[in-house]
């Protein structure tokens, strides 16, 4: 299935596109609601402030298009970093706009402590806690690149499949009904092994 990268206007679209092309895919990049609503494999990258981005996506009717696409039970989505937060009910980052509501839960700022500086930046290991489609073929406790200040709260959601320790347990992978996926880390910034996340998502 040809992947579609949702152009959120803020994210680093180039690196996600480059990663998919390296894997041999021919991704479409689009912010056109008509194109998005018909696509079966959506990738929602994310950098920036939750409120800024969700408001932008609502104004362009992209949120409606994503929900319309997912009406089809064979369609799927992968949210990356802020893209994962956008799938949630809400986030405390910035204001009061709701998220897409595809994954139950809210996002909150990571609690700082002496050795957990905010933002959480760098490679950190992830621990599988449930059967995971995204982690297929990836070694246990592998390192992925994180760069964020907000995360799902409470850390463990019913759909969390992998966690990462950073002063608290962070949901680093969420997988719901084999079609709603999200990673708190950036697969496209996690060396070549990180790209396996994309091929696993696209072959589900």
């Amino acid at each position, binding site marked *: 299935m040809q992947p579609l990268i949702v152009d959120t206007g803020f994210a680093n679209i180039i690196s996600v596109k480059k990663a998919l092309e390296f894997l041999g895919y021919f991704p479409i990049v689009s912010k056109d609601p008509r194109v998005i609503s018909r696509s079966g494999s959506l990738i929602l990258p994310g950098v920036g402030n939750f409120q*800024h981005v969700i408001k932008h996506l609502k104004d362009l009717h992209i949120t409606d298009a994503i929900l319309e696409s997912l009406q089809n039970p064979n369609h799927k989505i992968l949210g990356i970093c802020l893209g994962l937060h956008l799938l949630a009910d809400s986030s405390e980052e910035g204001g009061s706009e709701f998220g897409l509501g595809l994954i139950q839960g809210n996002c909150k700022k990571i609690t700082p402590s002496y050795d957990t500086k905010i933002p959480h930046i760098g*490679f950190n290991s992830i621990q599988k806690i449930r059967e995971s489609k995204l982690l297929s073929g990836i070694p246990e406790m592998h390192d992925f690149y994180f760069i964020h200040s907000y995360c799902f709260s409470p850390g463990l959601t019913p759909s969390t499949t992998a966690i990462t320790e950073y002063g608290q347990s962070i949901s680093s992978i969420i997988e719901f009904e084999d079609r709603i996926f999200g990673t708190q880390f950036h697969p496209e910034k996690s*060396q*070549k092994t990180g790209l396996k996340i994309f091929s696993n998502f696209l072959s589900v």
Partner: protein
Amino acid sequence: MLKKRIIFALLYQDGFFCLSRNFRLQKVGDINWLLKSYNFEEISGAIDELVILNLSTNAFDHRDFILCVEKIQKNFFIPITLGGNVRKVKDADRLFSFGADKIVLNTLFFENSDIAAEIVSQYGSQAVIASVDYKKNELSDYTNYMTHNREQKLSELELINHLQKVQVLGCGEILARSVERDGTGNGLDLAFLDFVPDNEITVPLIIAGGIGKSDHMIAGLQNSRINAVCTANLLNFMNKSLLQARRSIESKGLPVAKILD
């Protein structure tokens, strides 16, 4: 567990990649020289992040710089930080649109901190690194320096005040660089941390200035307050040297990411 990072930086000016010595740039080679001396697809396995700064005298000539960025970042997948000559939100927008995950700001924090704050509010703290250059003053105290029009001008701000300021404005990381050690290859100035109380830096700290060999990286990474070391030493880490440096850092048991081939 969060790993410590090894960051490699490239300094670009007017068509050449440069070596910086006490903040004076010396041209080393053009993009062809760079790609011949560094196989980035291979050395990306030795570093955690890549920084590329455009220090060109013609601030509006981005085209050549961007062509170089494109050529460099083929076929590897690590975070890229771009910077240099960011004076307006539009300059930041441009760097992000060229594929930057983060940008580096320095002068803007002195000259127009409102714009720095605006960039932070649009892209998030995690996307902005504050580059803070410091130098010992005659009383062997530390006083902050800024680079301005490639001349060093002493800022009226004390280092600590400036560190507080960039964090209040929302930077997500601090890149602290010693002006005196810059490009010397004599090792990092870790003593400056004695001058900056622990609680004054609450964001991740990257340290630069003086790295000439892997032992210098090890000394930096062994310090519990340092999250990452950064080198722009274009001549000391050619060919396989970065890979060898990472191996020696791993052999000291320091927590760095495991990178599979």
